[in-house]
């Protein structure tokens, strides 16, 4: 096992563990911190691949990922958290131990679902795809199992980070123009969500249970 493979696997594992930490911790500040750490791990993954393949463009992508996912987006979210001191995910729909068990099952499901990709790509990169897919699935789970509006945004970002990990692992990143476009779109999306979140808070919503007026 080479150092490269080991380092790459460790970075990928940090991304997945970050998703687990989001389910594990109650304090929103720790949850946002876990997202930032995930962003760093993603950037490290991209940088490792760039070094391995001597790809300067990919290195630039790594810097972009570092800036957007590890600094700007967590920064935006931290300001939301700071506006509500001591904010906690106090009463999730699914309690923490059960969520963690579900996360374990989702990891195994990702392991199974990723088999065609692992079979096609293989090597030190392709075999890590289940970890990215597990992050995606855990992100979906965070979105359905948590009450806080902010937690839904976090779940969405987990999904996004997981997909980014898969993209880096299987193709060393999609072409840079797409990467640029998608990063900007995600950033805009988060800005829009941030503005909406502020308007929701101003209107007196903080908990998604209160968003029940529209239904059939």
């Amino acid at each position: 096992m080479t150092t490269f493979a080991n380092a790459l696997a460790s970075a990928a594992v940090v991304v997945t563990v970050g998703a687990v930490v989001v389910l594990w911790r109650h304090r929103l500040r720790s949850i946002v911190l876990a997202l930032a750490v995930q962003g760093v791990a993603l950037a490290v993954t991209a940088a490792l691949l760039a070094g391995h393949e001597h790809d300067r463009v990919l290195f630039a992508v790594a810097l972009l990922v570092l800036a957007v996912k590890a600094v700007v987006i967590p920064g935006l979210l931290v300001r939301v958290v700071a506006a509500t001191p001591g904010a906690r995910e106090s009463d999730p729909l699914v309690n923490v131990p059960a969520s963690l068990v579900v996360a374990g099952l989702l990891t195994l499901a990702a392991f199974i679902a990723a088999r065609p990709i692992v079979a096609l790509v293989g090597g030190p990169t392709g075999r890590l795809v289940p970890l990215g897919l597990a992050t995606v699935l855990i992100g979906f789970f965070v979105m359905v199992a948590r009450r806080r509006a902010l937690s839904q945004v976090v779940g969405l970002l987990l999904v996004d980070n997981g997909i980014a990990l898969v993209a880096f692992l299987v193709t060393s990143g999609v072409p840079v123009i797409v990467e640029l476009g998608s990063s900007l779109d995600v950033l805009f999306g988060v800005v829009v969500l941030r503005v909406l979140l502020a308007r929701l808070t101003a209107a007196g919503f903080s908990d998604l249970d209160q968003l029940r007026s529209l239904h059939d």
Partner: protein
Amino acid sequence: MIYWLFLAPVVAGLVAVATPWRPAVAWLGATSSAVVLVLGVAFAVRVESSGPVGTGVLRVDALAAFMVIVIGAVSLLATVRSVSYLTDEVANGHSTLRHAALYSTLVQGFIAAMLLAVVANNLGVLWVAIEATTVVTTFLVGHHRTKSALEASWKYIIICSVGIAVAFLGTVVLYLAGVHAGIANPLDFTALAAHASMLNAPVVRLAFTLLVLGYGTKAGLVPLFSWLPDAHGQAPAPVSALMSGVLLSVALSAILRLRVIAVGALGVTFPRVLLLTIGIATLLVAASLLLAQRDLKRLLAYSTMEHMGMMTVAAGVGGPLALSGVLLHIMGHGLVKGVLFLDAGEVLALDGTTRIDALRGLLSRRPAVGAILALGLAGLLGLPPFSIFVSELTMLRAEAGAGLWWVAAIVLVVLAVILAAILAHARTVLFGPSKTATASPVSFSAPLGVALGVAVWFGIVAWPLAHLISLAAKVVA
């Protein structure tokens, strides 16, 4: 050459940002839509005579030209109505000049993003464009800034972002299959379609499922559809018209293009099973929610879901006949549904509610509004001579012709249920006694009447769209 398409919306959008809002700004937006429509026709003529335009990331083939025409037509209708909508809003104090300017800009951005999505010949650009429509329309949905509007826009962006994320994963996986098949430009639609048989089948299966689920979210398909009634119910009427009339069809046209690649790599069975399952499930969900609906705008939203489900079923069947039916349906449904949402917007503006049981006697109270609603619903239900009648018949014939009698039977039964439900709701809204009758201005009834007329025109005479539709159906057959 293709970039000229974006010039008008970009200029109109920038002007709306840069200058203080006044009705002329809204008229400029309408002009921009007219320019898009004219350019769409020009592209169609060019494509019909000398084949697709462009080779790079942007490419206008028959399908793209057709979709540009649909976008141009429906957005012309919506932006023309936006003029009086915004003028009234500002006059009533419901909306400030800044909000009106923001609205005008976002609508132009929305149109530009949809144009980019239909002319994109690249999976990545398509994704960026569809994501951009979500980001732009979130604020349009929340334009009224009431609690309900905020809730609807929150649901809208969250659910659509999930869908779009799934689509991105599908894009990555399909790209991976392309890379491993040795395709030089593995995000290129034409390249992927040309070399589809070389792609790794299990990976394409995964990718196509993810892409259909992802873009299906924007097309209002099962399972991620719950944003649709809320967003359509809360958005300003012209925005609902644009979303229901074209945005959902744009997402569907992306699925049509992706289906070509899937059929090339997997054969016809897997895409057919997937699309039939999702389409029929959407039909059933829409029909069951339509039955007990109490709100006119939500009723229209669920009807859109039903039509999207019907088109998905036909797309699953495949073949030139079914796809011609789908494309004609996109045009007919876009016009009629646009008219209906604008009409419902007028009802909301005048009566202050869209609750079905609060609207009794619409036909005698406001003859023009009521008549347009009645005609629009007739068109929506597929009564002749509207073009939806022709396209539904075409799709059913294609389904039966492919030996899928049971599919045609399910669709017919669901259509019958929906017919009964909508007629019952329509009777409540339209009929009933009223002492006063209020006339509506020509600026309201003229554009809507023209749009309905066009929908009838395509139901009777296929000219001038027939050739373009048959070319476009061949692109994705």
